[in-house]
């Protein structure tokens, strides 16, 4: 059976990533609108503030009767936010807070329960489907591809994937030593949400922007998607949680033709062609979208299949078959 609908998951993923990013930009503007409403000071606003007021009023008035109160429903960022009364936090925030304070604060830990459950089921889905930094990193990756086409020497170094677990460990130790949640300063999704808020509502970007730009340069100059692959502490945590995920992309060896497109397209440098997905896969589904024979699809499985050998539609497999047939013929 061909699972053609799964080829469109990548488009859906881009849609969700863009929606999340737009929400992160919209929420600070809505906050400004709320403060203008609270101060009843339309006549005292500057022209650009009036523009914010008017556009947000135009945007919300068809849906909301009392925006000053109702807009409290969506607050925060993907690092920690409120969505219609439901408080959600990044598991990394919980790890950081627990190691900084060396105590467990249950109301906060519960806010990370839903993301953890989803990660146990879908693996590193946050990285591929929600993280606002992923959107920027993937666009940055495209720029890198253009530069490479233009003939610029773009380095594609390979580091050790386990480096990010070291970042996670050292980050936790440092948080405990300093008594402050240091992950917040180096975790791109947290930085992006915060910096957008600063730029819109507080005035000017903060120091996090510089760090994020450095990671973009790192991706361009040192290693393709290098920060996510090798350095991100959140990615490390999600990978660990999703090690035995229930849904995972698997290769159907009977329809695979060894075209290697999946290995080329994989932004995380994994090895779908030889069933090497592992805990790092972020379910970005780029390999599913690119597969010409629909050999890759999501399956209910707790472990990856061990290398199933060359695909049955490929040349290598045919040669092997012919050889073994010859051997059998000779035996007879």
């Amino acid at each position, binding site marked *: 059976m061909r699972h053609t609908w799964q080829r469109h998951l990548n488009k859906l993923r881009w849609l969700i990533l863009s929606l999340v990013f737009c929400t992160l930009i919209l929420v600070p503007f809505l906050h400004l609108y709320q403060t203008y409403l609270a101060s009843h000071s339309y006549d005292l606003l500057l022209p650009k503030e009036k523009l914010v007021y008017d556009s947000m009023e135009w945007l919300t008035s068809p849906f909301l009767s009392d925006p000053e109160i109702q807009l409290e429903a969506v*607050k925060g960022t993907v690092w920690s936010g*409120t969505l219609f009364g439901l408080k959600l*936090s990044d598991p990394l925030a919980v790890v950081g*807070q627990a190691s900084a*304070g060396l105590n467990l604060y249950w109301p906060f830990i519960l806010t990370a329960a839903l993301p953890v459950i989803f990660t146990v089921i879908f693996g590193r889905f946050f990285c591929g489907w929600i993280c606002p930094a992923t959107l920027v990193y993937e666009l940055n990756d495209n720029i890198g591809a253009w530069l490479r086409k233009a003939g610029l020497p773009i380095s594609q170094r390979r580091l050790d994937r386990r480096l990010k677990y070291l970042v996670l460990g*050292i980050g936790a130790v440092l948080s405990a030593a300093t008594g402050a*949640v240091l992950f917040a300063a180096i975790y791109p999704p947290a930085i992006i949400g915060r910096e957008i*808020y600063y730029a819109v509502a*507080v005035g000017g970007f903060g120091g996090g922007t510089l760090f994020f730009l450095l990671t973009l340069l790192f991706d361009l100059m040192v290693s393709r998607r290098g920060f996510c692959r090798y350095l991100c502490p959140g990615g490390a945590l999600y990978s660990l949680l999703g090690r035995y995920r229930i849904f995972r992309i698997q290769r159907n060896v009977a329809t695979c033709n060894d075209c290697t497109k999946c290995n080329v397209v994989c932004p995380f440098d994994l090895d779908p062609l030889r069933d090497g997905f592992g805990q790092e896969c972020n379910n970005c589904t780029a390999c599913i979208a690119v597969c010409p024979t629909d050999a890759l699809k999501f399956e209910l499985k707790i472990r990856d299949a061990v290398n199933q050998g060359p695909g049955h539609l490929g040349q290598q497999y045919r040669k092997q078959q012919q050889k073994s047939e010859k051997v059998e013929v000779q035996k007879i």
Partner: protein
Amino acid sequence: MERRSLIKYFVVGAIVGATSLSSFARAAQQKTVSSRYLRPPGALAEDKFLANCIHCGKCGEVCPNRAINFFGLGNGLASLDTPYIVPREQACILCMKCGDACPTGALKPIAREVEDIVANVKMGHARVDKNLCLSYQGKTCGVCARACPLPDISMRVGFLETPIVMDACVGCGLCERSCIQIPAAIKVIPDMQRS
């Protein structure tokens, strides 16, 4: 070869970690004394606050008065992106929304009732400079007492509207914000232990 490179990473990582550990720890401990800023209402004692705050910025995002600012690197790495209030610029109106929004309890959730606010909010304590205060100079003013959200609980006025700050002052800073003297004759002295 792979194992060797892994060991290399771990050694380099351990060295970098150890050196930065000591410097970070020092940088984090520097700024806990003699600080001249207010934390939002309901904040825990400074060290506990830093340990709990995840720098998410939600307190600023719910503040209807836009009183909450966020530190850059100027105040040390530990307090990077943590909230603070400069009352002379924009003071806290004690709406208590930030405590409800805070996911980690770094800002305690406090009901918006006079008793709860007086008992739990310890941002600081207002202090009158009698040499600057107009009322103490015989020019009846009383603006700060009128700005106080807890009149006759935190502040009362004496002869010629002279402000007298009482023990129940929570340090919201509305008096400092409203003071017509330049520099302000009444200032909130932050309490980092919030006791």
